[in-house]
């Protein structure tokens, strides 16, 4: 087996054994599962239980059922009670959320949610109006017919409103996950480089492995860990969405978005890992690491913030430009693609440019690493790292 895969396998074995890695994986999986179930919990289906008491109960029930029939994913379960006392007991025992007594009083344990309040109010107005009109001498049949109003159709310019919200949630999730994974794995790369340089084990390694092989093996190994983490997140997320029944509400193309996000992760990782490794090779102590890494971390952080902005305004000129320009594209493009339809050529252009940038930084970073990793003692200056090997 060649040196690169030996090095990569060591990284995977040793790193995946750490508690940090295992707990991290479990925690992110849970977080993602919760996030994936969110559309169902928040935006989508609502189930209400309503108790009815009094002579108008029949007509109220009809009015409520009519609303339930029109609403998307709206179910109203109705229970009839003989008297107010029974209804109150049912509310107190959480058998029903609210009880409407004599079409005049709403009994509830705490404040009634706005949606339910609106539903009850509409039903109440319908029944009360009907009653008033009938008692004013109008034909009950005609009143009934007049009450039949077609609900307004919603026309949202960016797909349906709910869809847009979900797309945005997905986009935000992508930014957060990409950022967290990139910063985590790239920091591992940097710490690994310093571990080897600081402990001087690199001096033994480099008698049997070439510097670029060592760097490639380390980056590939940790990259595989990052990728598997991303895949676990994607699978758990989509499975949770399926199980909670949120899938019908996932916008079209979500699977495609997840797939391209993986590609973007790989491109972004190649870029930042090479950068972090080269910078880390300048110092010999873990304590000095965060200091030298600051510019690189800032760049990643900036991408993250831009990605967040992009999730809010996916059509803005800034978002548009940064979704093409590396290295910002690695975070902005998947976000933009999650929210709006991106022309294929733009995706291809952005990926091509990012790939070029990654190759360039791999080349430069590899050279810096090669020069600096065997230099002991004080921090290696940039000029020396770029200059000719001594």
């Amino acid at each position: 087996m060649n040196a690169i895969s030996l090095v990569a396998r060591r990284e995977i074995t040793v790193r995946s054994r750490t508690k940090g890695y295992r707990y991290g994986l479990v925690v992110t999986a849970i977080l993602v599962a919760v996030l994936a179930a969110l559309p169902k919990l928040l935006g989508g289906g609502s189930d209400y239980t309503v108790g009815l008491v009094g002579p108008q109960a029949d007509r109220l029930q009809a009015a409520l059922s009519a609303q339930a029939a029109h609403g998307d994913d709206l179910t109203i379960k109705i229970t009839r009670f003989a008297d107010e006392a029974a209804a109150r007991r049912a509310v107190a025992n959480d058998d029903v959320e609210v009880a409407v007594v004599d079409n005049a009083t709403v009994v509830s344990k705490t404040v009634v949610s706005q949606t339910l309040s609106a539903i009850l109010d509409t039903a109440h107005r319908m029944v009360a109006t009907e009653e008033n009109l009938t008692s004013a001498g109008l034909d009950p049949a005609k009143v009934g017919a007049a009450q039949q109003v077609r609900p307004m159709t919603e026309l949202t310019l960016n797909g349906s409103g709910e869809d847009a919200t979900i797309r945005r949630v997905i986009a935000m999730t992508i930014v957060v996950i990409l950022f967290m994974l990139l910063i985590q794995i790239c920091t591992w790369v940097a710490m690994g480089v310093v571990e080897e340089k600081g402990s001087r084990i690199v001096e033994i390694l480099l008698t049997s492995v070439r510097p670029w092989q060592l760097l490639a093996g380390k980056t590939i190994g940790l990259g595989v860990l990052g990728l598997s983490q991303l895949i676990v997140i994607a699978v758990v997320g989509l499975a949770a969405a399926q199980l909670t029944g949120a899938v019908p509400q996932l916008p079209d193309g979500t699977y495609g978005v997840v797939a391209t996000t993986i590609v973007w992760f790989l491109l972004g990782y190649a870029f930042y890992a090479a950068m972090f490794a080269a910078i880390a090779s300048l110092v010999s102590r873990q304590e000095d690491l965060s200091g030298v890494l600051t510019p690189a971390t800032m760049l990643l952080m900036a991408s993250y913030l831009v990605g967040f902005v992009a999730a809010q305004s996916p059509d803005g000129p800034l978002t548009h430009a940064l979704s093409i320009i590396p290295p910002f594209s690695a975070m902005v493009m998947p976000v933009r693609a999650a929210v709006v339809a991106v022309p294929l050529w733009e995706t291809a252009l952005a990926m091509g440019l990012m790939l070029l940038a990654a190759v360039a930084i791999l080349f430069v970073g590899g050279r810096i690493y090669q020069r600096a990793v065997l230099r002991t003692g004080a921090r290696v200056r940039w000029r020396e790292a770029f200059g000719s090997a001594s």
Partner: protein
Amino acid sequence: MLEVDGLKKRYGDKVALDGVSLTVRPGEMYGFVGANGAGKTTTMRIVMGVLASDGGEVRWKGAPAGFETRRRFGYMPEERGLYAKMRVGEQVEYFGRLGGMDAPAARRSADALIERLGLTDRRGDEVAGLSLGNQQRVQLAVALIHEPELLVLDEPFSGLDPIAVDALAGVLAERTAAGVAVVFSSHQLDLVERLCDAVGIIKDGRMIAGGTVAELRARESRKRLRIVVTGAEPGWADRLPGEIVAKNDRPPQGDPAGPDGDQRYDEVILRPSDDQEALLLAARAGRVQHFGWQEPSLAEIFREVVA
């Protein structure tokens, strides 16, 4: 055979190596001695290819040593380094694989070495949890695992207790017996004298002496006379021809200078300009108890040539 030929290295204005040459034959134990900062580590790092030289050549079996050749060398750097979070066995195996062994061979070799170095019940422990002495053994195992033909060990004995020194010396002797060339640096000269077939002395980046211990000794041996005289007048020794290296007028405990124990005792180490003249003078001065060339220890040779 390892041939180091005219190595040069400078750090900025500082010349670290100024034409260092040495030869280590298969089955030979070569002691590389010199004061701190003399250039031992620099030489060994260039031999191992982890440092580029400014001139000169390293040859193995007559051909310039390249990357593939050096993979078959074993190395213990001056600053020890191991993966703290890796287990002993898996770490040793890992370096075996990097050195070109397949998995079963690396495993077998690691098992044998770990057993030989007395680390068997530590095999599954993380290196970070081992005592320093045991870490040093793992370091040695890492250098030996891929059965190298040349061992380059930078100060392998430093920090070891006498028992560990003997254990390491034993392991190295096994290797040389199997035909491995071993070169190690040290400033424990008694140890070098005891273990090494050949010695090289480096000072300020230049080799100032080299050869087998016997050769060095022969070169230095007919230089000092040890003269013991009893019953002489004080001040007789000042007339001896040559330079007096050391003087002692107290007889060694339990070794009376002669039948007349209360007589004056004189021991002189002399670098004579005329040995026969010295003998005559000593005989005239008193009763000559001892007159002979002194066999120098490596430490004395070292002081002699480095001074």
